[in-house]
């Protein structure tokens, strides 16, 4: 008997045994799960294989038979090595991203997935499985700590930025990428989850929502005019440091117009306009003031 024949018989025997085990373990509603659909697939993709494809049975997708996502795959069944399943998610001979995604979109149509077609990620031919691992118990893309590593694979500028001294707790997973961005598509510029940038910031910083009696117009318009949300060299995620940040827009008579230079260091004049919190030593209410004498955002 040839070795290949022995292997084939062995795989069939093992697969049958495994399938029996699985079938016995799952006496659920037959309408929910049709394990007979696993038979031809599990013959090769057995529990003993190095890639634990059958761990899908421990996920919501375990309710779907293989053909539900991979298609009937008749050619693959006849020539497992040479032919891919009808819908192949790789690593060999993957189907086009559009065809792959169509499988997922059969079920995941509404909610946050509504705007997938035409989204930035779809436009870049990133398929669902480019981020999601379907066969594992814990999809890394749904793990708040691990998720960012998937995003950083493409968004490399953010990978370095989130380690700067002033940052959101993204590495710790306490602020996850999806808290602000919808990777499945959005109508906002940076695929934000809320209708506007400021609304996105207000989900955690509701105290900045106001409305204040005395508004600081750029703060009410666009938080990113002063802050870099992913991280900054400067304290409080500021785009640049004070007092120079404030002086990008303000040049009023007397101290707001003066150059704050090395003469303001402690060894010289110890300027209140340069040191410590500089402008915010007095004008601390930069997001707006609700004090009736707070016109200068000091109170």
């Amino acid at each position, binding site marked *: 008997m040839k070795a290949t024949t022995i292997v084939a018989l062995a795989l069939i*025997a093992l697969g049958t045994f495994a399938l029996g085990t699985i079938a016995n373990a799952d006496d659920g509603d037959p309408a929910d799960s049709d394990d007979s659909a696993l038979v031809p697939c599990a013959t090769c993709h057995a529990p003993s294989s190095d890639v634990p494809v059958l761990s899908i049975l421990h996920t919501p997708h375990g309710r779907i038979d293989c053909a539900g996502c991979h298609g009937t795959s008749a050619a693959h069944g006849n020539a497992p090595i040479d032919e891919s399943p009808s819908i192949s998610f790789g690593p060999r001979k993957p189907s086009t991203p559009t065809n792959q995604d169509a499988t997922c979109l059969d079920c995941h149509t509404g909610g946050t997935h509504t705007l997938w077609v035409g989204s930035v990620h779809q436009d870049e031919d990133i398929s669902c499985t480019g981020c999601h691992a379907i066969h594992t118990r814990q999809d890394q893309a749904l793990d708040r700590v691990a998720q960012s590593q998937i995003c950083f694979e493409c968004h490399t500028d953010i990978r370095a930025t989130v380690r700067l001294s002033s940052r959101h707790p993204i590495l710790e997973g306490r602020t996850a990428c999806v808290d602000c961005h919808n990777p499945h598509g959005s*109508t906002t510029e940076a695929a934000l989850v809320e209708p506007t940038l400021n609304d996105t910031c207000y989900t955690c910083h509701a105290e900045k929502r106001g409305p204040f009696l005395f508004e600081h117009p750029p703060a009410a318009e666009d938080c990113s005019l002063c802050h870099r949300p992913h991280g900054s*060299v400067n304290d409080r995620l500021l785009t640049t440091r004070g007092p120079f940040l404030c002086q990008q*827009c303000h040049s009023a008579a007397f101290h707001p*117009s003066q150059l704050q230079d090395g003469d303001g260091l402690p060894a010289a004049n110890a300027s209140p306009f340069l040191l410590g919190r500089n402008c915010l030593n007095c004008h601390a209410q930069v997001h707006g003031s609700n004090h009736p*004498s707070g016109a200068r955002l000091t109170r």
Partner: protein
Amino acid sequence: MLRAFGLLLLTVPLALRAQPEPNPSGDPGPDPFAFLAEDTRPLATRHAVDYRGEVTLDGYYISDDSFMFGQYTDDHEEGFDVDLSLDITTWDPEGRLGNFTDYWRVWADSLASDVRQGYVEFGRVGDYTARLGYDQQLQVRNDSGRTPFIGGGESLVLPSDWVASNITSGMDLLTSSSREFDQEVERKRFDLGFAKQFGPAWDVALDFSTEEKTGTQTLGGALYVDGSNGHAAILPKDLDATTNTLELTGGYAADRITLNLEYLYSDYDNDNSALTWDNPYNGVFGPGIDYPDGRGSAAYEPDNEMQRLRGFGSYVFSPKLRFTVDGSFAKTEQDTSFLPFTVNALNVTEPVPRANLDGEIETRTFDGRAYYRPLPKLSLEANYHFEERNNDGPRDGYLYVRGDAWAPDDAKFTVYNTTHDRTVNRLKLKGSYRLPRATKLGLEYVYDEVERSNAAVEKTEEDRYIVTLRTRIIQNLTGRLEVEYADRAADTYQWGQSFFALLDTRLINEIPDNQRYITHPELSQYYLANREQWQARLNLNYALNSFWNLSLDANYQDADFDKSELGLTEQKLTHVTLGGQWTPNADYSVSVFYSYDRYEAEQGGRSFRGGAEKNAFEIFPPLPQASDPSRNWKVEPEDTTHSIGIDAQWTAIPDRLDLNLSYHYTDSEGSEDFTTFGAPDILGTPLPDMEATQHDLSLRATYHYTEQMSFDAEYRYYSYERDDWALDGVGLDTIDKVVSLGEVNPDDDVSFFLLSVKYRLRE
């Protein structure tokens, strides 16, 4: 070999079921087929398939205090500690947990620390999900500050034996009476979620959360008569606020149409309304305002309430044509009672014009998109975006009591609040075409129009042109290039707008025409100003072979605010990342990256006085300062960061010992270069560079003692050093008129030792 393997596989089922024959003595003896019953699957497979969860117990030691190391992790203090985490998921198709559920998950992390979090979730797939969660977060800031103020909540006082002075160095007890305090903000959030599907098309969801935010921040509190004589103190500001959020969602999804409707209610409730504090100064403002009787006051962020209705959906007209819409209407209101103009015994007879702002902001957004794919290789998209912020708050005149120290004696000093509205209309047209060699060419045009009320510029219009090319350059080398050009044109800049909006007509009439401005007329606030901007992004990815992958990412942005003489005139951002991954097999992997980030800006100013000098339009010498170009100055702030990251993983003994190494290095430098233009009193004396260096090294070994139990040992070295002139040498009394915190720049070296045991729970 292959034959042996096949035989082995063939006999596994038989071996598992084999009943060995007893020997003549009745002792069955060792099972000759026992080795066949051994599980040959990799450990990772067994962990993935055979277990439903794990419990992890950590014990660790931190060698030194460091607020930077434990900025968000509650690991900012030296000492031993323990922690517990667990993650258990059970799929229950057999209904052991009852017929109402087929899975549940319990997840908890850092249970013994102040950053604990977790949730319990259960449900039936395709039917419902219920979830109860808790999330506690902590942010620690520079904890080296000290303050002489005692008390908390809404009132801060000075020690009874306080020695006041007109400058901080005269406050004899400032240093000795100051206490340390922690700048920490803690969030505790409970959330409850329930989602239910009704058939294949309908679903509803409810999410409720309540978050309590407490801790201590800081606030610059100022007492002043005018800007040249401001006296301030950096205060510890207690925080005690709650945000409640309720979100109801309903969705319908069918073959052609998808609809979602959301209602959001968010309520922010601040337990504090005013912060008042003893004036630490005397000999400045006079009796009643100086120490010991005078106090300062500032308002906390007001309570607010927001409600929003949002709907979005899509309609598939045909496989080639799809429409999506997204619209929202939100209303934010606040009616927190106003504080008095002053807490000091000033001669203020005028009442605050209203009891509260009765503020209301309406926000409307709408997005409509048509996505058309006439040919398999061609896709076209048209997108319209509308956004409106309408501040309906009332406009009134308010007495401007300067810094709780001076009350105007004439109604002409009344100032007026201004409401700001904004409307955005944006049209985007986009097309992309697929060419041979995995090439895709994209063209995009965006017209962006922003109209503002009560702003220096009524309308800005911007045209943006974007070209994108993605291609396979050679075998295994793919590239993507995006180039964008944007040109923003602003209406005439009304430099006097904020002056006229703020001040009373009587005062305006007393000020000469040529002095009617606040911000210098040659400055156009950059976000309202003309702008020409280039932006380019390049991505290259090269799969050298099946082991090596190399990548290059680069972004460049150059914005030129060419119509503004002062303020921000140019801004550049540069980013480059070089990355590489080496994965020779499943047992080894190494990834490295180097990133370079640079922010550069050019901004100008003109140092000038007020009063009769404040004439920016005088052209004959001797020029007043406001029109004297020799009083110009220019500063070029620059921040540069180099980052290096290495992550390596090695399975030293398969299924037994895993080793991990991670190292991240960040080096940042900030500088300001000055240029002056001749005025003898404007020197442009250099500032030292800001420097910050961070090393973060982690060595971790995971030993799988048994299939069920693993041990982890980790050594982590963290180092952070910052040299920043804003804090360098600034003690509590260094600045004459600011009682500072005396914070020092961090210079931390931390060693972190972790021993951890993980126990897995079988299915």
